[in-house]
């Protein structure tokens, strides 16, 4: 009964990966990759995305999880709405944001003009700003999921611990520092690592918002691979992925060890 899955695994994972590695076997591909200035920019963008973007997202998720465990009828309604970005498809919502940011007729700049009489920034035409906005887009989309995970973790902490702490006169910060954080730090760390691995594969936030532009300055590894593929340079596409493997695989094995315990 495991045969159907194994067939899928060998035909659509093992063979493609093996074939991909074979395509990227020539040292020449790597030389050309390293000679491509876009590649360096991409590596930096990817690192910023992972280190800055993900950590900001996880800290916000950790704080929001404290908000969502409060028992109020209106907080349950907010949590219903809050999950929406995660359930909706990326493309309409990201395009919606892209249109908002249009410098000439987007709603943000027309509002800025009506209120102040000045022209708003050319949002997606500035590489730094565009990358930041792609991170914001990513956070908008995946914050609900991670908040939900951390809410589940918070709810599994026994309430008596907090009651006992209250009796002893602990402040909110002390409760967080000595009860919440110790019981959540493992899952927080695991979530952060998992989110980093997955974000490497986040094609939509960057591609649909900036298309990698302006001038290919906002690519991340996920979009760069597809860009090479579209330019019919499959070996470069594969090489850019292979180069990331020494960083990805240790994280993947760490996660596998954590989960299969």
């Amino acid at each position, binding site marked *: *009964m495991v045969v159907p899955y194994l067939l899928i695994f060998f035909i659509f994972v093992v*063979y493609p990966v093996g074939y991909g590695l074979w395509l990227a076997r020539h040292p020449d591909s790597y030389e050309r990759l390293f000679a491509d200035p876009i590649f360096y920019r991409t590596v930096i963008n990817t690192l910023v995305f992972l280190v800055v973007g993900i950590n900001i997202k996880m800290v916000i998720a950790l704080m929001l999880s404290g908000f969502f465990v409060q028992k109020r009828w209106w907080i349950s309604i907010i949590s219903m709405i809050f999950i929406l970005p995660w*359930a909706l498809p990326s*493309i309409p919502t990201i*395009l919606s944001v892209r249109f908002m940011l249009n410098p000439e007729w987007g709603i943000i700049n027309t509002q800025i003009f009506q209120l102040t009489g000045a022209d708003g920034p050319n949002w997606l035409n500035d590489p730094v700003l565009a990358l930041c906005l792609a991170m914001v887009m990513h956070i908008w989309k995946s914050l609900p999921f991670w908040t939900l995970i951390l809410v589940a973790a918070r709810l599994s902490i026994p309430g008596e611990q907090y009651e006992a702490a209250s009796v002893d006169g602990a402040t909110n910060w002390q409760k967080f520092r000595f009860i919440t954080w110790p019981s959540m730090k493992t899952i927080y760390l695991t979530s952060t690592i998992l989110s980093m691995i997955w974000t490497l594969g986040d094609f939509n936030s960057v591609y649909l918002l900036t298309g990698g532009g302006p001038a290919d300055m906002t690519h991340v590894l*996920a979009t760069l691979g597809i860009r090479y593929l579209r330019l019919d340079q499959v070996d470069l*596409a594969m090489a850019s992925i292979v180069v990331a493997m020494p960083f990805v695989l240790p*994280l993947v094995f760490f996660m596998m060890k954590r989960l299969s315990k």
Partner: protein
Amino acid sequence: MKKFTLKNIATEAKLLLIGIPLIIWTLIPVYHLFLFSISTKDSATSGHLWPVHPTLQNFEFVLMQKHFYLNYFWIQMWNSLFIALMVGFFTLLISTFAAFAISRLKVRGGRTVLNLALFTYFIPAAFLAVPMYKTMGQYGLLNNQLSLILAMITIASPYSIWVLKQASDKLPLELDEAARMDGATPMQLFRLVYLPLMVPSLVAVGTYSLLLAWNEYLYAFLLLSKEDSFTVGVALGNFLSADDSPWELLMTTGLIYALPPAAIYYTFKRYMVSGLTAGAVKS
């Protein structure tokens, strides 16, 4: 009932101070989508927060396919639905078999299969897309919806196996023993004992893979290239390539495309949240 002390009011105020911005932050892109869909093009691009003359004309244009960008709208909706249903069904089939065999029948090598699945689950999806696209070409499946269905099954099943395996482990082993004492074959055990008990997790996994396939953009846009075989998502992406695209129609189509997953999610929310957060990260 809580007393209305100053301290309580301050706490509520602080909570509201988080809650209100949170709602606005979440809804802005969705509201903007909606705003476009009820505006004429002139109104939508002149910065009104609410249209001067709200109109349903855009919906009429989309649903009646009255623009050459929309010639295939209903076919594309059908494509999205068909692909999502196929992915949901086969993912469920494959992963239930695997989870049952690994967790209940304890087949040899089950542990290894689970690890292989987990490994696939952790590979960033965009990284697998490049080699997948090349191999689909070799298999002669490019431009064929089968390629997208198979690719999405490949991506959806590892997580499904993982979640279902976790859920199966929680069912008491005595059930299996009792059924076997009564002479049940493994197939009977599967059909009569296992499946009925697993319904909540099966609903969670089915919904998960259905939504994953319906919402997918990258693989759909790589693997499909004919307008009449596109999913709605790919068609939306194609609007972007033209300079004079009818933005208001694009946004209306996008809103219609976003409604079914939202409806499905809220219908099965109860199963989704517990099933999926339990499997995602073990605490």
